[in-house]
């Protein structure tokens, strides 16, 4: 590869300020991982890491990379669990986390423009004085960046009512693989509704850096709900939980979030460690349902939730004041603690953590997933977004044992294949990255051809995050 020269540092320093470039192994090693289990076992070192601070920086770098056919891997906070920011075939990592300015907040128009490195939490902090917020709340919101959220089309618990990031993106500034700058959503200005032309925002949202580098994001933001309430319910069986969630909606409630922890027959321990009253021996599943809105609507919905809980759940507890709601959420947020209690000495790993299935199949598939883990000799805790059929599987393996590492990868593969067989999706919010790319052909068939064609059009030199989502070689191998 003609870009891999001894003078890489010098060469990159002629494009960027030298203090924005690192090539020494100690610094590079810190870019060999993300949150995926895959990267913990198989780190991938880039040849350089750079920290662009302007559109010009990115454009010049991409032009140079195009000439040299050097892989470019954009990276935010690397909170991704799918190997999306790994330099799997070497190259240069673009650490965009320090390019984190919020350049404009227009409270009167309910929109903002920010650079990719600003974190979800910092953006909301800046919006707070205006009574505004960005609703899609990924659970990693304190750390993850808006650029990363856009590249993954992140969503999170409250997307049930409030939608994913794509519902809020008004436009993107993107540097394509040729170095050309593209502004989506109209170049004359941004508005809250726009169907003018093909929706190019959608093209880049969830594209994980394979089509362009997202350098700016225009977002619609919303008024914060005035009130919230939540009810935690413990159910003996997943089927009972299913009936209850259908009943909640039948009675007119529009939940903002409906999250679960499934671990038969010990799910109750997730909640009982916080509240003894939630101890139900043998229970399979815990669900927290949150409603939000104005005071009157929340009071009404809270009453309905409590009615359903009383009729269907074996135990429940609710709150309609902020501190109490926060404490109830700790049950679902404490997945690490709960996992540790399920299998001592094991580590919760992210390998098959993001599948989505049809709602009617949810109980059956949860049981089958648990069985797959058992057959492979490792532990598992499933949790996620109940009312969307979206399952995060936390595999509990003793990672110092190579046999268990293999078993974990095998379990992950079997879960993905089961879900595809059942007509589900391998990923619903965490992205394909590198680790789920092998399933893309089965999942999309000729759709993958079109993804490759789109990529080739926007990234003719094949430099943008190669090997992710639709590796060019995947389709060629299958031909």
């Amino acid at each position, binding site marked *: 590869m003609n870009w891999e020269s001894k003078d890489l540092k010098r060469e990159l320093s002629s494009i960027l300020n030298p203090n924005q470039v*690192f090539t*020494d*192994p*100690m*610094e590079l*090693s*810190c*870019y060999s*991982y*993300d*949150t995926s289990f895959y*990267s*913990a076992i198989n780190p991938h070192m880039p040849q350089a*890491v750079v*920290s662009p601070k302007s559109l010009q920086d990115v454009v010049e770098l991409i032009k140079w990379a195009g000439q040299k056919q050097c892989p470019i891997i954009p990276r935010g*906070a*690397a*909170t991704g669990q799918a190997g999306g920011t790994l330099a799997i075939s070497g190259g240069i990592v673009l*650490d965009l*986390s*320090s390019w984190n300015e919020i350049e404009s907040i227009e409270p009167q128009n309910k929109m903002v423009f920010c650079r990719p490195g600003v*974190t979800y*939490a910092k953006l909301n902090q800046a919006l707070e004085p205006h009574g505004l917020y960005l609703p899609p709340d990924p659970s*990693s919101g*304190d*750390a*993850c960046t808006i650029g990363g959220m856009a590249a993954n089309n992140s969503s999170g618990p409250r997307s049930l009512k409030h939608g994913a990031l794509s519902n809020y993106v008004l436009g993107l500034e993107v540097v394509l693989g040729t170095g050309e700058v593209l502004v989506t959503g109209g170049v004359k200005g941004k508005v809250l509704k726009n169907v003018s032309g093909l929706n190019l925002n959608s093209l880049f949202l969830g594209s994980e850096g394979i089509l362009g580098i997202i350098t700016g994001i225009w977002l619609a933001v919303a008024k914060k709900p005035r009130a919230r309430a939540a009810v935690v319910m413990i159910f003996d069986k997943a089927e009972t939980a299913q009936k209850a969630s259908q009943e909640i909606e039948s009675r007119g409630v529009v939940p903002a979030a409906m999250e679960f922890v499934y671990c038969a027959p010990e799910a109750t321990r997730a909640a009982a460690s916080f509240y003894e009253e939630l101890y139900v021996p043998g229970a399979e599943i815990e669900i927290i349902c949150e409603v939000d809105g104005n005071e009157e609507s929340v009071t009404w919905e809270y009453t309905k939730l409590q009615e359903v809980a009383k009729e269907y759940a074996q135990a429940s507890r609710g709150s309609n004041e902020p501190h109490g709601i926060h404490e109830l959420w700790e049950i679902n947020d404490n*997945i*690490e603690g709960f996992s540790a209690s399920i299998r001592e000495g094991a*580590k*919760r*790993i*992210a390998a098959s953590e993001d599948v989505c299935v049809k709602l009617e199949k949810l109980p059956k598939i949860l049981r089958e997933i648990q069985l797959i883990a058992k057959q492979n000799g490792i532990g598992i805790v499933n949790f996620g977004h109940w009312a969307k059929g979206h399952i995060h599987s936390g595999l509990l393996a003793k*990672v*110092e044992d190579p046999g268990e590492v293999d078993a974990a990868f095998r379990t992950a593969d079997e879960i993905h294949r089961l879900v595809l067989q059942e007509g589900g999706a391998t990923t619903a919010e965490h992205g394909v990255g590198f680790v789920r790319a092998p399933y893309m052909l089965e999942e999309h068939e000729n759709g993958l051809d079109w993804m490759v064609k789109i990529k080739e059009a926007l990234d003719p030199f094949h430099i943008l995050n190669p090997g992710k989502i639709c590796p060019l070689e995947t389709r060629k191998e299958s031909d």
Partner: protein
Amino acid sequence: MLREELYDQVKKLIDKCNRCGFCRSVCPSLAELGWESTSPRGRVFLVGEVLAGRIPLTGDVVSRIDQCLLCRNCMAVCPVGGKIDQVIIAFRQLAAQEMGVATSKKLMLNMLSDHRGLCDVMAPVAAVLEHIPFKETPGGGAIFRLNKKMRLLPMFGGKPLMSQFQHIKVDKPIKKVAFYVGCYINYMGVNVGRAVLNILARNGVEVVIPQTQTCCGVPFFASGMVEKAVTLVRQNIDALEEANVDAVIYACGSCGTGLKEWARHPEIGSEYAEKAKKLEEKTFEIGEFLIDQLEVKELPSLPKPTRVTYHDSCHLAVGAGVIEQPRTLLKMMGNAEYIEMPEANTCCGMGGLFSVNHYDLSRKINSRKIDKIMSVNPQVVTSGCPGCNLHIMDGLNKAGSDIVTSHYIELINNAYDCAQE
């Protein structure tokens, strides 16, 4: 300790990290430097790589690990309860063993451990002589007369607190406590110490100041000088145990965290760890003691209306969990108009010796804090840590602000003093 032994000691802690990156959101040095190697996740990874021999121990790695303030904010948000400070300390121990500790640092620390007698004699002399090159600020800081842009230093407090007071007796004491003074309060923040003693006495508490207590060991652990730290910890445990009191009181966030966590260091041995655990149960920060143990419900008024805000020392808030009590006390005083500053719990950039070794970086971190303080326009900014106060005072001085910095207990003592007058 051999590298292999150190690795054995912390490997489990390192392997526990699932690299979720949540720690990135709170790390003060990452916020300024930006690179992954300057994040807690990156540092834990690097320590593992060095201890495993995959990355050589070089000055560059040492520098990255050295940029950690040990503020522990990362530990407060870590979903797996990572003991990141112990990983950092293990690395610094390795670096100290294999590369040595800077002579200046060693000299400064050894003064506090081995030459306290000399410090006791020199402190009153220094307190007089330092007025020649330095000018005292209203908050007790020292500005170098020839270069006002230079870092603001602490003024010596005259005769060390421990030389002034050994035992404060009261009529019919409701409790008997030992005051763990700490080096800063003993030599520089003597007024803070006096305030603590005064307030305790006024609330009917008898106070002893064990004379064999010494440095808490925190700066030694932080510098990787673990062997010396262990000696100090044991000496303190003996001193406080011999005092035979109902409670141990401290007024410095960093010392307090040290005190409450002596048992976490396996190097002190199981016998001392047992003693440390018992001491920990009865160790309280002064505000925590007043609110939770003495159940103080009212305080006198300040002499005039004063807008006050409070900064959370990382060690006090994250390490010792003391958050609300100082605020409750401040709000209790008549004439005190309490204003909560935004992001009161973000680091001020002090980090003990960190601010000496990385002054420019610590200033950058501090300037964010100064902006937050100034945004609520207080007359007095308080905290429960003399170190934070010094650094905040330095930042305010550089910003040309006339906001006064004070330990919150000194402000409360002012109220008591005025009530007496």
